[in-house]
């Protein structure tokens, strides 16, 4: 269990660092990059939650999240370069 706390602690620090970049920017692209990194971390976090609650079906949440996050990042990217 201690192991899991450690993992969660690391994830929390990572999320904190990512969030810092997300809020600080300075450019919109920086925020997008931070967001991209954060979505990866969040996907992992969702899997971790599924593992901790021992619910196999929660993995679907992570799957859907990964898809939506990807499309979201792409949409942001295309918006930034005027492709929308």
């Amino acid at each position: 269990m201690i192991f899991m706390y450690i993992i969660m602690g690391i994830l929390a620090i990572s999320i904190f660092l990512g969030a810092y970049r997300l809020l600080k920017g300075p450019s919109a692209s920086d925020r997008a990059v931070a967001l991209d990194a954060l979505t990866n971390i969040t996907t992992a976090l969702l899997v971790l939650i599924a593992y901790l609650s021992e619910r196999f079906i929660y993995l679907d949440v992570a799957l859907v999240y990964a898809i939506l996050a990807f499309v979201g990042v792409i949409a942001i990217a295309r918006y930034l370069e005027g492709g929308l």
Partner: protein
Amino acid sequence: MIWAIYFAIASLLAIGIYGVITKKNLMKIFISISIMETGVNLMLIAIGYIPGGTAPIENGDFTTYVDPLPQALVLTAIVIGVSVLALALVMVINYYEKNKTLEYRRLMKW
């Protein structure tokens, strides 16, 4: 723990209403409303939360589930929020086309 969530809910609602009242950019107004919606969705979840409960999907081992009803309500509320946001977006696009600005201006005189 639950108080952190309560705090987040109240903050989201307050931030949202602050945004609606003070922002001039229409898009920001609607984003503020979305923030409020997020707050209220979270509120529904928080109210349905039962300490130690997990998702109300039967798998034999668990005896405590959280209240499933608010979750169903939140599902509905989210979809409604998205719908309204989509429509708002279109309205704003149209508004922009007509007025060439996203700044909210009063056009009608009384």
